[in-house]
């Protein structure tokens, strides 16, 4: 199985378009981009996939040791781009994938040549003067909550294979869309929310857009502004929407902001 197959890679847009890679964050898989991808796909080659342990990614692609650190995900993203023979891409990363993108760009700036960070936070837990928005105990509680909820992970497989594509197909959609294997989701929450990537931000050398939601309790405006201030060549834009997922709650504005950024920075195609 290739990595592209294991991570359920999907591609839209013109073959010769400049490449935009969409990376989903903590939560549901690549279908989070379903309203943004077609808009970007009108002019760009758009690639999305499921991170190991999420959505429709093959179970075997998740390795509890490797994925105990964001660097494990970074290596997967770079390996995937290498396998697809892609370079000079724009990586659009939501939430924790924003930091995965930051790490990937530091490692391979020719490959990840532009960054769009959607609702990023370099550290979620408060630390002295730094406001991340979370106390350490909140993260403990979240990790525990992830172990209690499966969102269809244990839907009986029989329902998937039987049936005529009606209800069964629906079950399959439900399951692959947002299913979480409890121990994997708990570890992903742990890696996501206990991380501290503040020191990595000044090492980013590529043009970067920071897109923040106006009312986001997961990654507050202060967190986004901090990311913008620390990345040398970065712009900052606020989408007037509520919630941590502007690509879901305001897909039009989010797509427009990404396209605006791509129009202002030099790209290969």
């Amino acid at each position, binding site marked *: 199985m290739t990595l592209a197959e294991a991570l359920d890679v999907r591609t839209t847009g013109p073959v010769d378009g400049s490449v935009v890679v969409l990376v989903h*964050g*903590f*939560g*549901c898989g690549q*279908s*989070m981009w379903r309203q943004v991808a077609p808009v970007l796909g009108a002019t760009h080659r758009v690639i999305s996939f499921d991170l190991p342990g999420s959505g429709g990614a093959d179970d075997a692609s998740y390795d509890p040791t490797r994925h105990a650190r964001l660097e494990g995900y970074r290596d997967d993203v770079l390996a995937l781009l290498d396998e697809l023979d892609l370079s000079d891409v724009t990586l659009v990363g939501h*939430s924790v994938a924003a930091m995965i993108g930051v790490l990937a760009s530091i490692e391979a700036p020719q490959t990840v040549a532009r960054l769009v960070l959607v609702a990023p936070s370099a550290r979620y837990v408060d630390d002295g003067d730094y406001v991340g928005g*979370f*106390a350490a105990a*909140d*993260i403990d*509680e*979240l990790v*525990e*909550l*992830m*172990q*209690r*909820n499966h*969102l269809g992970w244990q839907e009986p497989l029989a329902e998937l294979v039987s049936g005529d594509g009606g209800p069964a197909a629906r079950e399959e959609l*439900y399951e692959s*869309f*947002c299913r*979480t294997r409890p121990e994997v989701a708990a570890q992903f929450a742990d890696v996501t*929310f206990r991380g501290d990537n503040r020191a990595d931000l000044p090492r980013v050398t590529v043009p970067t857009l920071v897109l923040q939601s106006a009312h986001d*309790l*997961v990654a507050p405006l202060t967190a986004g502004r901090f990311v913008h201030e620390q990345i040398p060549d970065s712009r900052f834009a606020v989408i007037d929407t*509520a*919630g*941590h*997922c502007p690509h*879901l709650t305001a897909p039009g504005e989010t797509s427009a902001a990404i396209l605006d950024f791509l129009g202002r920075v030099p790209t290969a195609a």
Partner: protein
Amino acid sequence: MRARTRLDPDLLQDAPAGHVTTDETGLVASANTEFLRLVGRTEDDVVGRLELADLLTVAGRVYLETHLAPLLQREEVVREIELDLLRPDGARAPVLLNARRLGDEGSRSLQIVLLGAGDRHRYEEDLRQAGRLAEAARAESAALAETLSRTLIPPAPPSVPHLEIAAAYRPAGDGREVGGDFYDVFQVSETGWVVVLGDVSGKGVHAATVTSLVRHSVRTLAIDHPDPADLLYGVDRVLTREQTDHYCTLIVVRMDYRERGWDLRICLAGHPPALLRAADGTVTEVGTPGSPAGLMPEPSFTCVRHRLGDELLTVYTDGVTEARGVAGMYGEERLYALMGELSHDPHAQVDGIVTSALDYQDGNPADDIAIIAFAAVG
């Protein structure tokens, strides 16, 4: 047949389940009595003023934002979500939540039903805690078994001048339990060495203590019992006095290097004979059957002498020959034929026999396997 009637709205108001709706902006639009009881607030506090997120713990809000809201935006219903409501005094009220989207795809207008789940939550928490403790105990016992195995089975036999030795040990099953097989190779004089291979009956920690006792008794007795038969009488007495239900089969090979060659004394205690493989591949058994140690009231052990030429000598435990596969027992015949085919080298013999015995059982051996093979060199 009775005519069906619509649900009385008053029933919903007093339903024994929390019921709440949110409008397009996400604010609470209506809340019934049970819901207000669960969140510990009044209608005026909640309706038109708070969102569902405001009534959740921080963890619950993150979960709502990252999982439930995206799911509800696309799917119509989510079911059986465990969350904690946050009451004004900071107390948490565990609930089970079902929610249904009321508007079009993407709408934030929801109908939500909540059941208090405090007792169930405590019960499940106890179960999870019990699971964690059981897993920790299992891990500790596996680690103990591994440590014990390492003390009973040398990772590699020592290097003996003028002798090429290969040895292998493969515990039964997944290797988590301490098996009864052991071997040892040690020096007793300037030119004298002892090779011992044994199989203590039974498994588990108690069998392992007996294995340890036998292994140390052999080492101690070997110092002033150059005749392996005397040594085995001693081991038998030790086990009998120990009053254990476990007994032990053993093969002891005393080796003395004299006049540029090895004189062997081989003695069996209820154990399969040693196997001599000639350079032409012929395999012959060496040894006189003897009693298992610690089993018979009047045991008997007899030594056999052999001057080692260019043959290979192999000793093994019955985990090899009593392996069971689809074709029945592995058996001596299959083993001797295999040894004839394998090359005339201790390592090739040991590796080949282990691989064959494992393959025969689909890689999941029913019993421990221990093998030592050696040949004279230089």
